[in-house]
């Protein structure tokens, strides 16, 4: 093997390594956006990405952010300024949600989130969205948490607070 062949071997090895690294990094990337096949009950334009909400939490005019899932999980960690509104998958939770938004202007920006389970299997987010829409609220956004609140918010380093 001469020097030229060795150099070629190194170059090829480096290319293979870079390609392998690229695949590894890509494999680790979480789903960047909403799923291609979204549930018709929450249209894609009503979905909010975690990074978008983080930006919205900074200005003085913060949106009303409601957690519509488990109270235990809310107590463990929740978005600063968010309120617990009850598990919308239950009739009691829906009642609590209705009570919370009573009297608000119908164009109020309301962000709802849950993150108890993967998005497609969450029992709370869709009922909460549908309830608010049926009450006439026109500016409702559902925080898109692909896997759960821990993976898609806490582990991303976004702000959280504890307590009920």
């Amino acid at each position, binding site marked *: 093997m001469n020097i030229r062949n060795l150099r070629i071997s190194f170059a090829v090895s480096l290319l293979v390594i870079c390609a392998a690294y690229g695949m590894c990094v890509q494999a680790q990337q979480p789903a960047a956006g909403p799923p291609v096949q979204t549930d018709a009950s929450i249209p894609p334009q009503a979905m909010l990405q975690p990074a978008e909400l983080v930006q919205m939490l900074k200005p003085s005019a913060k949106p009303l952010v409601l957690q519509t899932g*488990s109270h235990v999980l809310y107590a463990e960690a929740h978005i600063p300024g968010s309120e617990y509104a009850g598990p919308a998958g239950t009739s009691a939770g829906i009642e609590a949600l209705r009570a919370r938004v009573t009297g608000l202007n119908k164009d109020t920006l309301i962000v709802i989130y849950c*993150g*108890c389970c*993967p998005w497609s299997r969450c*029992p709370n987010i869709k009922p909460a969205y549908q309830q608010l829409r049926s009450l006439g609220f026109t500016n409702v956004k559902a925080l898109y948490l692909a896997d759960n609140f*821990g993976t898609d*918010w*806490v582990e991303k380093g976004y702000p959280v607070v504890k307590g009920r």
Partner: protein
Amino acid sequence: MERTARSRTVASLLPLSRLLLLLIAPIIHLPLVAQTSTGGVGVGHSAPNFSRVDLTHRKIVLSSYRGKIVLLNFWATWCEPCLTEMPTFVEWQKEYGSRNFQVIGISMDDAAPEVIATVSRLKLNYPVLMGDEYLGADYGGVLGLPVTFLIDRDGKIQARYQGTSLTRIHSDIQNLLQSH
């Protein structure tokens, strides 16, 4: 002569190869590390002890299960994926219970009545106790269900599973059972 020159060239490239390997080794290993360290208390560390009363008013102290392989499953009645995997835990408890294997369920529900009804409906054959935010925090944050921990006979966490991973859990349990 030519052979010696070639040998020298190859030898001069060896340190570079080693350096290259040192640089790429962590990169290639990165996905594995990322998978095992995502959230939660560390694999290989002692499982945080707790003492609580289960739904049948029996005191459950985790440390008293030393010598057994424990599958600690955080779940909730509203968590569909949790309910899907729990019948399999019932089967494992039946199959491996005599080999010092124990499932313990921790419900993250807000109230017990629905949990009691679900335990009865699913005919759970293992203790279930009510969890809360403190127990969740002790286990590194249970912020999405199900979350399951496999604890070895020495009380050390062998694995943390986020979401349903029945095949992987089963394989890990069998490995632990065989290793003792």
